[in-house]
């Protein structure tokens, strides 16, 4: 049994590496076909994010919100609900936090306390909005995919409206708020980069989520509900309550991500389209196999690919859309449970037989 378990873990690792290699090989082939200077392109994509301090900063700047949205999505995904409200509350939370910060510029509070208050407000706003599709699903059986996506657009236009009517900067040619006051900016950890103190918030969130997941009865209930709802019912678990909390927690973490991102990276609020950060959170959760302790790995991998794609876009003749194809291949292969599954099963079958043989001797 132990051997089988080890084989499973080893296989998971090999599988992810193999998926990456295959995806790279496919992309490489495509790059060779469409560009004049393939070596340069591959270099930018694969090594690019690590070549300068600024680029690595960009990577970490993406990594931080991914930690939060990914963790949030772990709750949603582990409860077997596909509630995508994380996307909408990400913007909404960022928007509310930006408006409050701008309207109260120069507030007589210690900056750290004021920032903490803003982050908490953003999180609570997200949790409150996250309650809507969760309640609709668990109480009225309205499918959460549909309601959350529709709601995402409603929230997007709501944020545009709020920015336009409350804090629009008339000096700039696009829709955006006025500059955020200095005192609400999260401290930069490395000057001249996007690496900011939100990193600690993100990592702390991963720890908190892991504790909730494995060390509280709530996390226990969420996982059982997500794994087998019928069994949860027989075991006397309050399914609706567990699933609603899971979805609200998911929204709350995403919303915190939006607030941290705004205060950490941006000078002003200017998200006039969906940020994709919430959806990316789902990808992170998929890459981390819905285990919050693996979210840092998944978040880093996705941030690395996204940064590489941006660099490729402005350094070479390869369009951004093409790079997204490659990302899709990697994610597909990692997410596909049965990729290389045949070999895995054969291996496990052999081990089981072996074990049986040993027992008989």
């Amino acid at each position, binding site marked *: 049994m132990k051997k089988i378990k080890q084989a499973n873990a080893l296989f998971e690792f090999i599988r992810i590496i193999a998926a990456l290699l295959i995806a790279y090989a496919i992309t490489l082939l495509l790059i060779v076909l469409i560009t004049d200077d393939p070596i340069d392109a591959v270099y930018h994509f694969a090594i690019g994010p690590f070549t300068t301090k600024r680029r690595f900063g960009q990577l970490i700047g993406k990594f931080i919100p991914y930690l939060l949205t990914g963790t949030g999505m772990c709750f949603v995904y582990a409860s077997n609900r596909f509630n995508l409200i994380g996307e909408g509350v990400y913007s909404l939370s960022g928007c509310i936090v930006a408006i409050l910060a701008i309207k109260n510029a120069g507030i007589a509070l210690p900056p750290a306390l004021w920032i903490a208050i803003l982050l908490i407000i953003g999180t609570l706003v997200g949790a409150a909005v996250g309650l809507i599709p969760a309640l609709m699903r668990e109480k009225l059986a309205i499918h959460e995919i549909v309601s959350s996506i529709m709601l995402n657009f409603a929230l997007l236009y709501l944020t545009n409206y709020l920015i336009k009517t409350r804090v629009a900067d008339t000096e700039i040619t696009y829709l955006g708020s006025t500059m955020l006051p200095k005192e609400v900016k999260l401290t930069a950890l490395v000057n001249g980069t996007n690496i900011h103190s939100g990193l600690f918030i993100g990592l702390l969130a991963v720890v908190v989520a892991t504790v909730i997941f494995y060390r509280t009865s709530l996390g226990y209930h969420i996982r059982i509900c997500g794994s087998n709802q*019928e069994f949860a019912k027989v*075991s006397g678990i*309050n399914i609706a309550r567990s699933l609603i909390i899971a979805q609200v927690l998911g929204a709350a973490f995403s919303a915190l991500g939006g607030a941290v991102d705004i205060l950490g990276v941006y000078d002003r609020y200017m998200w006039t389209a969906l940020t994709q950060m919430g959806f990316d959170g789902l990808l992170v959760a998929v890459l981390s196999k819905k285990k919050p302790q693996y979210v840092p790995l998944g978040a880093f991998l996705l941030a690395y690919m996204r940064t590489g794609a941006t660099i490729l876009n402005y350094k070479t003749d390869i369009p951004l859309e093409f790079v997204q194809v490659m990302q899709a291949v990697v994610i597909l292969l990692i997410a596909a449970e049965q990729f290389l599954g045949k070999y895995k099963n054969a291996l496990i079958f052999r081990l089981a037989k072996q074990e049986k043989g040993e027992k008989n001797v």
Partner: protein
Amino acid sequence: MSEDILSMEHITKVYENGFIANEDVSLSVRKGEIHALVGENGAGKTTLMNILFGFIPYQEGRILINGEEVHITGPLDAIEKGIGMVHQHFMQMPSLTVAENVVLGMEPVRGVIFDRQEAAKITQEISDKYDLKVNADDIVADLPIGLRQKVELLKALVRNCKLLILDEPTAVLTPQETEELFVQLKELKKNGFSIIFISHKLEEVMKLCDRVTVLRRGRSVGSGEIKDLTTAELSKMIVGRDVVTEIEKEKSEPKKDILSVEGLRCKNKDYVEVVKGIDLKVRAGEILGVAGVEGNGQVEVAEAITGMLIPSGGNIRINGKNIRGKTIKQIKDLGLSYISEDRLKYGCAPLMPIRENLMADRIDRKEYKKFGLFLDRKKIDDEVKQLIREYEIKCDDGEEEIRMLSGGNIQKVIVAREMSSGANLIVANQPTRGIDVGTTDLIRKTLIRKTREENVGVLLITSDLNEVLELSDRMIVMKDGQIVAHFNDVKKVSDEQLGEYMLGIRKMSPEEMEGLS
């Protein structure tokens, strides 16, 4: 024999989890006969037919069609070889017409365009030829169940199948529809078709079929001409015991009532009344066995007691408290634990570790928490370790996913959890079905120990005669949602007697059922 259209010889099928569904099963069907395949649920009928239809592979044995050995690779191949299946659950597109459903997968075309008229023509021709009374242009969704079944039959006939398999075709039919179906099946027989008729309704088998093969616990226990058999003989073949095992147990000394059920009525999800006014009680320190052919309301009784199914009438009291309006958790807290018949669906979360599965019903109790919030890891680990040891669950440390265990060990996990929950009423539904001998023994002994030493009451629902006769202190038999027999002294009950009650040949009067409630 050359006149055999089909013969399956020495078929053995072992599922991935080690369950032996068919063991050395043989079946032969002659040309132009209606052959009954009978046996209880779980006897291996469906597995055997799925093998024949190419749905699942088998390990040993061979299949001959018209005397030639064949290897059936899938349903399409089976159809090509002339085998047609009428499934219990119709495989139909309700929004399409009969003709469209019938020709699905072999659509007649004009150029590249579907030829609707041709499809209707083909379908109507066959329907008229065998007098199936189906109109090819009707929308399937508008048809009554009986006609929808004919559509299924038409599908096989249009594909030129000579051997038709009907899987419990009368289960969904009214008596009139059944009559009509039998007339049509006999007509088909005259036209040279061979039919395998799967059923556990004896009267139908006696009326319709020419020969019969009986399966029990995955083995073929006999076959023969219907005209040489009496209903009693056949019933004995179906429900009889293979080996009579004796389990030692002290005489029970029942005490106060733990469970009392009065006038319980339940409807299934199709709003059909399946439990029709049942009274029973279970006392502390005894096992009440519920025997009966499956599907006679036993599952619904169990689900009503556990709160999974809201009864349409009657009262259920656990330890004196009426469970009406209570949540499953509240009912469990009255002192109930439940071993479900479907262990992978209701008994565990297959993708989660053994540890989590062992603790699922009690994790929010205070005793497992530190500071009222965080789980007390050490306490949980200790209890998990102890349960694994006590119930001899074969695993390393409880961290592996439960699906990696064998069926028997999965059941041990479930039993360990349910027996250790502190409940004084255990509802056990088929606790040992498909489980190896060692585990079965462990589960049975634990049930007896619980009643004798800890004053627990057990409601044991099982279709295993051995089990019900050996474990029960008192026993009831259910048929068609009613209690048809009650035995205060199980030792005096013979297999034949029990079989007759189970199959509805005899029924006790209320006076005879003394001490039932």
